[in-house]
C-alpha cells in the first residue's frame, strides 16, 4: 500500500509538473491555477488515504472477504474506486484480497474423510477371560468388558461421498488393537429413487431396533447393552440389500426390509443360493411440542444357522464343541425420546431409550461334535431388555445410567429330555437371568472429543458380580460427521 501511495503521489506530481512546464510563459496566471489544483489534489489524496486506511482496518477485521455480488465491502470498494477515478489516478490500487482457498477445485471431489480414535483403561474385579452371559449360547462377538489395563480401541476410518447423481457410497473400516483390519460397513445407497424409497447394498449395519445402526463412537456408554451382546454379538451387519420406504406423511413412518447371505450371528454362512434370512422393520416418530422428539419401532430378524458351533464344557469340566442348526427368529421393540428446552441442547438435554428383544430358536443341538456327536431337538424362547438415560446437566458434561436384564427362558434340550445326557453337560444353557447396572459420566471439550468414565456392576455370569471401571477416550478428526437421531 505504501509503495502504491508513493507511486500515486509521483504520478500526480508528474501530471502537475508537465502542463506547468509547457506553459512557462504565463507563469503568474498559471501559478494561481496550479496552487488551486495542488490543494484540490491534496484534499483528494487525503480523502483517498483516509478511505484506504479505513479499508485496511476493515480488511484486517474480516480478512479475505472479497468484492463483488452483494458482499458488503463491495460498496466501499466501489466508492473508493470511483473516488480514485475522480481524482484522476489511473488505478486506485486498492488491492482486492484474494479469494481464499475455501473452494479448492482439486479437493472438491475428494470424499469426506474422518477418523475416530478410541481407547480405554479397564479395571475389572473378575478375570475377563471367564466372562460369559449365563444361559445364552455364546455369540462369539464383542462380549464383555474387554481386557484389563490400557487397551487401544477401534480406530475407525470413514470415507463417504456421492458417487454420481444416483448413488451415495460409504466405507467404514475398523482397525482394532490387535492390528486386524475389518470392514464395518461398505455400502452404496440410492439418492435418485423417488417416492420415499432408498435402496442400500453391500455390508451395512442392519436397520432393526435403535442401537444396531449406530457406530461405537456414537454410543452413550463404553459397551453395548447385554441384550445386543447376547443376541447379536454386539451388532448385526448384513451382507446384502436393504429397501426402505418413508411414507409421505407428517408423522414419520418408515418400513424397511433386508436380506443377505445371513452369515452373521445368530445366522451362519450357508453354502446355498438365494436369499438367506430376512429382516423387517418399521419406525414411527414425531415431535411433542418444540422440546421433545421421539421414535419407536418394531422389527423382526429371521436367520438360519447351519452347524453354529460354540465351546462349552461337559459335566466333568472337559472342553466340548456343541453346535446348533435351525431357525433363529427375533422380535425387537425400541423407543427413544430426546428432550431439550425449545430444542436447544447446548445447556441441557435428556435422552431416554429402551429396547426389548425376544428370540425363539428352534432346531437341533449336537453335543460334542468332535467325538460323541450326539444329536437331539432344541428349542428355546429367550428375552432381554435394557433401559438407559443420559442427561447433560451443564455444557460439556453428561451423566448416564443403564439397566440391563436378560431371561434365558425355558430351554428344551432333546438329549436331556430323553435322558441321554444330564443337564450338567450343558452348563452354558442352564437357566439364568443376568443383569447389569451401569453409571456413566462424560466430558466433551468440543464436538470432536469426549472423555468418559464408567462403572458397572455386571452379573452376567450369574455367579459373582464383576465390578468394572473403565475410562475411555473418543476423538474425531476430519470431516464433521452427521449423526442419526
Amino acid at each position: 500500500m505504501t509503495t502504491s501511495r508513493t507511486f500515486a503521489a509521483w504520478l500526480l506530481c508528474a501530471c502537475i509538473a508537465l502542463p506547468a512546464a509547457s506553459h512557462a510563459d504565463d507563469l503568474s496566471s498559471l501559478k494561481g491555477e496550479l496552487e488551486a489544483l495542488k490543494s484540490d489534489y491534496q484534499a483528494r489524496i487525503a480523502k483517498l488515504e483516509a478511505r484506504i486506511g479505513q479499508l485496511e482496518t476493515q480488511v484486517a477485521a474480516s480478512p479475505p472477504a472479497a468484492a463483488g455480488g452483494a458482499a458488503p465491502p463491495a460498496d466501499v470498494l466501489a466508492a473508493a474506486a470511483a473516488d480514485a477515478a475522480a481524482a484522476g489516478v489511473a488505478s486506485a490500487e486498492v488491492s482486492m484480497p484474494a479469494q481464499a482457498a475455501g473452494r479448492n477445485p482439486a479437493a472438491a471431489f475428494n470424499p469426506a474423510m474422518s477418523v475416530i480414535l478410541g481407547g480405554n483403561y479397564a479395571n475389572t474385579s473378575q478375570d475377563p477371560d471367564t466372562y460369559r452371559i449365563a444361559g445364552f449360547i455364546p455369540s462369539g462377538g464383542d462380549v464383555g468388558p474387554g481386557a484389563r489395563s490400557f487397551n487401544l480401541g477401534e480406530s475407525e476410518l470413514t470415507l463417504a461421498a456421492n458417487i454420481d447423481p444416483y448413488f451415495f457410497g460409504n466405507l467404514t473400516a475398523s482397525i482394532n488393537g490387535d492390528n486386524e483390519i475389518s470392514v464395518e460397513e461398505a455400502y452404496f445407497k440410492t439418492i435418485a429413487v423417488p417416492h420415499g424409497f432408498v435402496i442400500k447394498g453391500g455390508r451395512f449395519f442392519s436397520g432393526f431396533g435403535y442401537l444396531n445402526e449406530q457406530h461405537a463412537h456414537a454410543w452413550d456408554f463404553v459397551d453395548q447393552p447385554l441384550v445386543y451382546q447376547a443376541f447379536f454379538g454386539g451388532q448385526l451387519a448384513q451382507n446384502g440389500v436393504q429397501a426402505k420406504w418413508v411414507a409421505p406423511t407428517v408423522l414419520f413412518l418408515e418400513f424397511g426390509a433386508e436380506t443377505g447371505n445371513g452369515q452373521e450371528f445368530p445366522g451362519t454362512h450357508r453354502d446355498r443360493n438365494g436369499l438367506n434370512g430376512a429382516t423387517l422393520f418399521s419406525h414411527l416418530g414425531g415431535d411433542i411440542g418444540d422440546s421433545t422428539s421421539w421414535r419407536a419401532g418394531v422389527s423382526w430378524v429371521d436367520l438360519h444357522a447351519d452347524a453354529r458351533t460354540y465351546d462349552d464344557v461337559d459335566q466333568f469340566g472337559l472342553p466340548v464343541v456343541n453346535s446348533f442348526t435351525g431357525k433363529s427368529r427375533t422380535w425387537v421393540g425400541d423407543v427413544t425420546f430426546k428432550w431439550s428446552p425449545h430444542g436447544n441442547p447446548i445447556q441441557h438435554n435428556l435422552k431416554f431409550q429402551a429396547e426389548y428383544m425376544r428370540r425363539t430358536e428352534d432346531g437341533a443341538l449336537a453335543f460334542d461334535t468332535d467325538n460323541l456327536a450326539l444329536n437331539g431337538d432344541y428349542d428355546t424362547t429367550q428375552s432381554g431388555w435394557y433401559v438407559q438415560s443420559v442427561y447433560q446437566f451443564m455444557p460439556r458434561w453428561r451423566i448416564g445410567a443403564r439397566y440391563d436384564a436378560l431371561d434365558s427362558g425355558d430351554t428344551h434340550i432333546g438329549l436331556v429330555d430323553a435322558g441321554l445326557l444330564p443337564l450338567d453337560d450343558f452348563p452354558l444353557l442352564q437357566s439364568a437371568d443376568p443383569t447389569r447396572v451401569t453409571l456413566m459420566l462424560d466430558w466433551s471439550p468440543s464436538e470432536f472429543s469426549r472423555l468418559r468414565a464408567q462403572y458397572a456392576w455386571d452379573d452376567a455370569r450369574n455367579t459373582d458380580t464383576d465390578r468394572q471401571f473403565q475410562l475411555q477416550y473418543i476423538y474425531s478428526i476430519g470431516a464433521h460427521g452427521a449423526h442419526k437421531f
Partner: protein
Amino acid sequence: MTRPIRSLALLALLISAVPAHAALKVLATTADWAALTKELGGDKVDVYGATTAFQDVHRVDAKPSLVARARSADLVVLSGAELEIGWLPILLQESGNPRIQIGQPGYFEAVSVLRLLEVPSTVDRSMGDVHPQGNPHVQLDPRNIAAIGKALTARLEQIDSKDAQYFESRGVDFQSRWQQAMARWDSQAAPLKGTSVVVIHRDQSYLCNWLGLKAVASIEPKPGLPPSAGYLAQLVAQLTSAPPKMILRNAYNDPKAAQWLSERVHAPVVLLPYSVGGTPEAKDLFGLFDDTINRLLKAVQ
C-alpha cells in the same frame, strides 16, 4: 388378490393420495429462510421451518419429524457453508427424495449467491469449529436478504413454472418494499456507526459489517467452544481498560455468560432476536430488522 393384500394396496393408495396439494412444499432450515420463502411464495408455497430462533442451527438433531418433512419437500432452503452439516445430510439421505439432493433445483443454498466474510486462509480444528467456506450466519445483513431473495424467486419460478408470473410479481413487490425498508434502516442506524460491541459467537459479523459496529471481543474464545475461566478473566481485563458500549446476545444464547461479563465491564446486554421469532416484535423479516435496530438504538441512547 387376497383380502389382506387388497386392503394393504388400498391403504398404500390412500397414503399416497394424501399429499396432493397444489402448493409447493418447502423445508427451510431456519426461521429466516422460512419467512423469506413465505414473503416470496405467498399462498403458492407450504413452508415448514426446521428450526426456531431459540435453537442453534449448528446443533440440531436429524429428528424423525424432519425426515418426514424432507420426504415430501419440493424444495429445501438452507444457509449452506456447512452451517447445517451435522444434520441436513442425514435428512437428504433418509428422505428418499431425489428432488432435494445437492445439485437439484430443489436444493437452494443461500450462501451460493454471496461472498462470505471471514473465509479462513488456513483451516484447522485447533481454531475451533471453523467453516472453511466462510461465516455462514448471513441473514443479519439486509443486502444479503435482497440478493438471496432474488435468487430464490428465480428458483421458485424454475421449480413451479406455471406460477412463475405470480412469483415474479411477488418478488418485484418484495424487493421494492425491502429497498424502502433498507433506506429507512440505514438512516435510522446512522448513530450506531463505530459503536464498540462484544459478541458471543461470530454470528453477528454481518450485522456489525452492515451497521459499522466494531466487534472488539467475542465471549467464545474460538467458534463453538465455551469460554474458560482464564479466558474470561483476560476478557474482563481487556474490556475494563476499553469498555464496550454493549454486549450483544442472541435469543438462543444462554443469558448467563453475557450477564456475567456485563456486571464486570459495566456494559449493558442487548438481547437481539437474531432470527425471525426471536422476540415478539420480530414476526417477519421486516420486524427482525426493525426490532434489531430499535434495540441497538435504545442501548446507545
